């Protein structure tokens, strides 16, 4: 069974992941070179742990994830609901939940939980019915409202976009989306009325970053200078002045892309974008060929989150999108983000393994889950 599973591994997906890992660790090394070397060492350990988890996930039947879908979703939602009551305030927003041993952001958890529960619900159900439409709206709406109140408009939008992608491939006709969009102002108005002044202010700052030029504005300008000054071939490994002299904010987490852009130039950036493109494209292809409909929808949801993370993060550091605290997948420093994403990719790999040599779902005799 062991060798069989290994033989079924999607080598292309694995290669993309390992190349991104190598590139990511190199960039992280450059980012923390001047400062805390422990960060680099920790990230190496996270990768080792992550790859182990990845291998283990490859052996976990997909069916067990389907069983976890509802409990996982409901626990996440409960945690999210607890945040306003017992959560910690970080940087003006209440996002963190401290459970003694670990403190985490339920808004991060709920994204994956929502993908799982939507995939599970629509694996066996007809889209384009009023009932399922409202189930979808309720499943997305509950966490969305809670996250907006934190307030964290960025995460809310990522969550909603990913959900829309899943519902799209689940087969909803376009008119349902138009209906949802038509409904959203009413929901928006209702939520807006319940926001506190400071929450409204945060939302407005998100919509118009110019209103806070010394905060996020300064960081984005410095990041654009780093990217632009890198040029075609970059300033060279460990040679980036913006990095070395700490002009980049959060240079080992959210703004790590700028480090790559400054030191490796357009060349390095193109390689990374290509790797991301190939990885996610491969994931979509796995979704397309999945043996079960549950697998298809889940892999699509995971791909959607990866696409959004990548696009929003790079868009934000290059000044085309507002600053949202979104990590660059597999490259930004951070153990929990890395483990979460590597687990998600492990699930994708599991779907690929289970689908190997099987026909994609389409006929009545295919298992749905």
């Amino acid at each position, binding site marked *: 069974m062991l060798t069989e599973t290994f033989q079924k591994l999607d080598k292309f997906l694995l290669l993309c992941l390992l190349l991104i890992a190598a590139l990511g660790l190199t960039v992280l090394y450059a980012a923390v070179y001047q400062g805390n070397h422990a960060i680099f060492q920790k990230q190496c350990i996270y990768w080792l742990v992550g790859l182990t988890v990845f291998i283990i996930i490859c052996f976990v039947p997909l069916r067990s994830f389907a069983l976890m879908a509802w409990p996982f979703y409901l626990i996440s939602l409960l945690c999210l609901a607890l945040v306003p009551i017992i959560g910690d305030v970080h940087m003006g927003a209440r996002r963190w939940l401290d459970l003694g041993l670990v403190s985490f952001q339920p808004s991060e958890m709920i994204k994956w939980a929502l993908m799982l529960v939507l995939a599970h619900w629509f694996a066996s159900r007809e889209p384009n019915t009023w009932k399922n439409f409202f189930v979808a709206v309720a499943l997305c709406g509950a966490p969305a409202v809670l996250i907006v109140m934190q307030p964290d408009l960025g995460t809310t939008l990522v969550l909603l976009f990913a959900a829309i992608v899943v519902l799209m491939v689940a087969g909803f006709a376009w008119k349902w989306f138009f209906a949802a969009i038509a409904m959203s102002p009413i929901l928006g108005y209702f939520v807006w009325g319940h926001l506190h002044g400071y929450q409204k202010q945060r939302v407005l700052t998100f919509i118009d970053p110019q209103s806070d030029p010394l905060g996020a504005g300064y960081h984005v300008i410095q990041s654009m200078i780093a990217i632009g000054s890198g040029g075609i071939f970059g300033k060279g490994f460990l040679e980036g002045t913006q990095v070395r002299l700490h002009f980049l904010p959060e240079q080992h987490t959210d703004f790590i892309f700028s480090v790559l*852009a400054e030191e490796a130039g357009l060349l390095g950036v193109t390689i990374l974008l290509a790797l991301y493109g190939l990885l996610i494209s491969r994931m979509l292809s796995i979704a397309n060929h999945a043996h079960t409909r549950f697998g298809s929808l889940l892999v699509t949801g995971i791909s959607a989150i990866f696409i959004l993370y990548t696009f929003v993060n790079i868009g934000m550091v290059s000044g085309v999108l507002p600053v949202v605290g979104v990590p660059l997948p597999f490259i930004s420093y951070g153990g929990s983000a890395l483990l979460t994403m590597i687990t998600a990719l492990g699930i994708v790999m599991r779907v690929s393994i289970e689908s190997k040599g099987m026909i994609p779902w389409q006929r009545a005799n295919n298992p749905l889950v």
Partner: protein
Amino acid sequence: MLNQLNVRARFETRITLLQLSLLLLMLILLSRMVYLQWMQHDGLMLQAEQNRLNIVPILPTRGSIQDRFGEGLAVNHVSYQISMMPERVDDMKKTMAQLIGFMHWSPRQIRRIQKRIKKSRKDRPVLLADKLTWQQVAPLSARLHHLSGIDVKAGTHRYYPYKELTSHLIGYLSLARPEDVRRGFLRSEHVGRSGLERIFEQRLHGVLGNQQEEVDAFNRRVAVLNQSPPRMGENIHLSLNIRLQQAAAKAMKGRTGAVVVMDVHTGEVLTLLSTPGIDTNHFTLGLEKEEWSSWLNNPQRPLLNRTVQAAYPPGSTWKMVTAFAGLRHHSQLARGHTRCHGYVQLADRKLRCWKRTGHGKVNIHDALQHSCDVYFYELADQLGMPALRQEALAWGFGKKTGVLLPRESRGHLASPLQQLSHGRKRTWVRGETMITGIGQGQTTVTPIQMARFAAAIANGGDILKPHLELGKAPEIIRHVEVKPDDLKRVREAMYAVANKPGGTAYYRLRHAAWKIAGKTGTAQVVAMSQNDAHKSKVPTEDAHKDHAWFMGYAPYDHPKIAFAIVIEHGGHGGSSAGPVALAMIQELKDEEDQRTRSHAH
């Protein structure tokens, strides 16, 4: 149950759609990168360089100001400043408590410092205290490595060792104001605000240097790339003799007035003292508001440089001007004599001599020696205003002397014509001409004009431009033609004032170290409401007391120095201003003796 076939087709289209969207998004990001890294590269590269490079000015050392013997009058003292980088402070409360323990700040200073920290950026150094001595910072610097974010740096500040003595002459500095910044000064630079610090600003200041540094995002220096050192300002050597100034100040102690001493041949100013003065070090050491306003509101006006900015009625010292006018115009009286009965009777009023009983028969010599008013009433009456005014102008009155000091007053010469044109209702009366002849009325002169007049008498009629720089070539503004005989008569009379029994300063000055030729003056205060030196609120018992003048030169036979001393409300010129001259002459004599002794060795 779901019919899978129904949704399969749509699923596949939408996966394809997603694949295309992915491609599109990646292309959007790529085109943004091409835009930034290729098309905008040059501009952003420049910005990165500007980020990284910091041109830091290096302030030049300001030149010092020294007296004629090289004694420092304005010097630079090493001082220390304490600054804090708030973001690097571990525990603000504890750090502040420790700082307060070391520095012994008053609660008010603590509040001010805390306010400053609160208002400043966290990643920039905040100045907590400066102008500190080594003794003050030593305990702190010994513990500095335990206090992260605190920095002690050495610098210099301006110091004026002679404090009140030179405050008017030297002036003071202050940090550049917005108008100075527009003129090209840096905010952190000090600029001469008054006195010679202001006049010689350009020469004293020096030239800024700069240093090209690589800095990080917190503006911390990472490396020095390039340096062009500053050029120190010029040291200015003054002609001033600070020991003479000290002697004058000692003799003036507690009195309000001015002393000017100048070299009769070169015009070099040896003493320029205005009392009371202020300790200008308070400006550099941080002036308290109360202190400043107490100076402003002090009735003795310590901020006024009386040597050049205040004009006083000359009183009897003016009699020399009237005498020269009489001699020049071959007035009968100047060659002859008159009889003083103690007053002159005019149609409507009686003009009195200071000596009620009268001086009897007086010629020009006696009239100057005894300062007889009646003689000069009559002389002035004979000469008339145009001649008197002409003479005054010739000796340099009514005009600025051109000494390099700010806001010099030109004084005022009485003039009937000018007053009519200025809308005076009453016509000029004869009595006014007569009192002008003895230096009362509307005439006012500055002490430096008076000293220059004394110098001109001593040097034979050369009106010099008084100057303060040692070794500068003398500048003769004009030569007043006086017949040697006439000059001799006036000089002899001035000699008699100090050296012959009956001379108005004889009693005080007969034992002077050098023989003095001089003239006392007692200027009435009551009749001079329009005098600009006197809008002050002096205590009433003093307000009516006369101003005392003493002017002259010494030694009599080979003059070296000329002087003018005025003491506000000093009373009689000979007895109150005379001793100041005496003290100064003694000092000069001592210095001369010392020089001859050291030459002999």
